[in-house]
């Protein structure tokens, strides 16, 4: 079935056997009432295999079996029953015993989510994404006490926590971390006097880290620990007269901060504290003739800035300011011969653009304009398959930043086994649903 396992999978087609094609999956239920699926890299192969099943069953059975082609099927009705056979336990013993939290959160109204709960049974499903290694890598960052390189990241540990924890959640392994310890560390980074969060304990408050803190709290469903009025006042207070936002009291202005403020306030349901119209107008003033956005008016279009601007416009319901066709074309021109994406014309490809470019394309509904297969290959080639983690390009050193963006990019392309990620909030969809709609299923947040 795949190169990791030399055993052949044997199923009795002529017993109690039913199958269904949902490209790229070939799903079946065998006589033991197990529901399994085979993932095919090539859609054509998937259909060919299904046809073969059909021909065999027709040839041997007295009553011809017709393959079910409808999207709704009995597979959806089956209740998700995670058992220890299908669920991989935490790779590192968690600081406190929380085995129940290691079970993936499988929602039973989404077929793909249901399907992904059977990751370890499927062999080929996560073949190329070495998910276990990435989880190990992220958890092991904790243990690397003598890493000289890490010292330069001390001040942005809040960002690091967001990247690492969101990646774990995408891989269904957030349960490997104790929320209480995270929250208690985070609150030590909180400045009670002004309402902002610093990058680490003993660091000044800044919008970047305030957003990461709010996002991490959202992951753990612990937004209740916040003094929401205080935090949102801090963020709103950073808006300038022209609608732009500064990162902190020292006044650095950049459209990145417009995104941080708008995303943060939206999660806290306090967008009404800022002048949204002015904020939007400022962002629009940073729009260039190629359809892209820069950090300031007149600034060169750059995929990172584009994500920030498009994300902010999406969250404020202002996407009508974007010329989707023009920007979509600029964005799909970021794809280079190696399949990866760059951030500006004539620059090198980098895994992090898998996020910035891809999420932008999804928000403007143009993601089908890139070659997803080639990008997937590029990201997978940036993995360190031995030690886990993902780097900016193949064979370079890995870091948590690129690990997050690589996994996030794969999630946006619906790589099997990953949680879905919201392109505007950069949080798993179930987390965003919980923020806005409680635990019910949500309509599309991006309808505009």
């Amino acid at each position, binding site marked *: 079935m795949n190169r990791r396992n030399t055993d052949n999978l044997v199923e009795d087609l002529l017993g109690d056997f039913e199958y269904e094609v949902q490209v790229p999956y070939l799903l079946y239920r065998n006589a033991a009432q197990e529901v399994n699926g085979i993932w095919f890299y090539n859609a054509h192969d998937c259909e060919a295999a299904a046809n073969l099943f059909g021909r065999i069953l027709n040839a041997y059975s007295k009553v011809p079996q017709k393959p079910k082609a409808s999207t709704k099927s009995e597979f959806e009705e089956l209740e998700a029953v995670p058992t220890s056979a299908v669920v991989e336990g935490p790779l590192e013993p968690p600081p406190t015993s929380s085995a129940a939290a290691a079970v993936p959160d499988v929602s039973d109204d989404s077929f793909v989510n249901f399907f992904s709960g059977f990751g370890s049974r499927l062999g080929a499903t996560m073949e190329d994404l070495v998910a276990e290694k990435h989880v190990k890598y992220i958890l092991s960052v904790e243990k690397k006490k003598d890493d000289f390189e890490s010292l330069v990241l001390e001040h942005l540990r809040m960002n690091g926590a967001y990247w690492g924890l969101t990646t774990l959640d995408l891989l269904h392994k957030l349960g490997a971390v104790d929320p209480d310890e995270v929250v208690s560390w985070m609150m030590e980074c909180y400045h009670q006097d002004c309402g902002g969060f610093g990058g680490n304990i*003993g660091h000044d408050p*800044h919008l970047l880290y305030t957003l990461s803190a709010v996002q991490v709290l959202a992951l753990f469903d612990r937004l209740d620990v916040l003094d929401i009025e205080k935090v949102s006042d801090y963020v709103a207070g950073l808006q300038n007269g022209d609608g732009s936002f500064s990162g902190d009291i020292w006044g650095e202005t950049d459209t990145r901060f417009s995104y941080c403020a708008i995303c943060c306030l939206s999660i806290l349901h306090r967008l009404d504290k800022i002048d949204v119209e002015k904020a939007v107008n400022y962002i629009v003033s940073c729009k*260039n003739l190629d359809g892209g956005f820069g950090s300031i008016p007149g600034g060169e279009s750059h995929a990172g800035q584009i994500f920030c601007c498009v994300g902010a416009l999406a969250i404020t319901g202002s996407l009508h300011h974007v010329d989707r066709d023009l920007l979509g074309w600029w964005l799909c021109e970021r794809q280079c011969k190696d399949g990866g994406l760059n951030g500006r014309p004539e620059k090198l490809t980098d895994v992090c653009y898998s996020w910035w470019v891809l999420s932008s394309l999804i928000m403007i509904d143009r993601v089908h304009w890139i070659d997803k297969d080639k990008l997937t290959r590029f990201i997978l080639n940036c993995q360190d398959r031995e030690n886990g983690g993902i780097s900016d390009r193949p064979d370079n050193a890995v870091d948590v930043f690129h690990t997050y963006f690589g996994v996030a990019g794969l999630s946006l392309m619906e790589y099997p086994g990953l949680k879905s990620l919201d392109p505007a909030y950069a949080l798993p969809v179930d987390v965003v649903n919980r923020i806005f709609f409680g635990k019910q299923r949500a309509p599309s947040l991006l309808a505009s």
Partner: protein
Amino acid sequence: MSSSDDDDERIPFIQRPEWSDVRPVPQDDGPHPIVPIAYHDDFRETMDYFRAVYLADERSRRALDLTTEAIGMNPANYTVWHFRRLVLEALNVDLHEERDFIDEIAVRNSKNYQIWHHRRWVAEKLGPQAADKELEFTMMILALDAKNYHAWSHRQWVLQSLGGWEKELDYCCKLLEDDIFNNSAWNQRYFVITRSPLLGGLQAMRDSEVSYTVEAILANPQNESPWRYLRGLYKGDTDLLVSDNQVSDVCLKVLKTNHNYIFALSLLLDLLCYGFQPSHELKRVVQFLGKTETDSSDANLATTICSILETVDPMRSNYWAWRKNNLPSQVC
């Protein structure tokens, strides 16, 4: 105020008599660090002493020197920079000295947000007289990395806040001579053309800029930037774009070379969608390409172009297929 790079010469704080009154404060990672950072001993000690003066809010000369050392070890630590600014203000330090300090460390850390922000803070305080030095500084950084986004943002801020537009267009020309593919330089060129108070504005500059751009395109038709720049010169005025022969001519010239013609085809496609009436020669050249590159033949020129692009630019075949399905009804 010089930062000590050489570890051999560095005297640990614990051995320095002028620091004997200070109790260093260790990093508090919390009981079980989530993403804890490992420390090098020298760095650890320097930061312990920094934390002491930061918590005590000591805005002294020795505190300033301490931030210099801390920045030397980790220039990305934004809290150190914040505190440094507080100390600079309290001591009323001559900011020309501070600017020299940034000159020294910026080269090795040219993509560091904190350094650029600090530079701007200093330049703002020094006022318009600082313009020349700031342009010189960014020029120095761009000589090492001509696409450094921070340098360009800073340069744009300097021009708009402090002035100095006189030689900017020449500077763009020079950078483009060095590397015609430098998208940042093309962006800056557009910035100058449209915003410089010394030039006549886009309309006045258009003709000369079109000539310049056409030359750049013909030299390297696979260069994305000048094609976009060319469109930008007509600033959304599609009628003008369609009626200017220079635009369709450059497409034709590139197509006739039968080489690197993807951007030429895509611009021609847009022209057709805006109502452009192609010459016989243009039709002939495109149809010939169509026969060579695709299996299908189509009387409709725009459809042919889309088919060719689907074949020669397969990475974006979905985009070109979408264009084909969304052609305006009147298009040739």
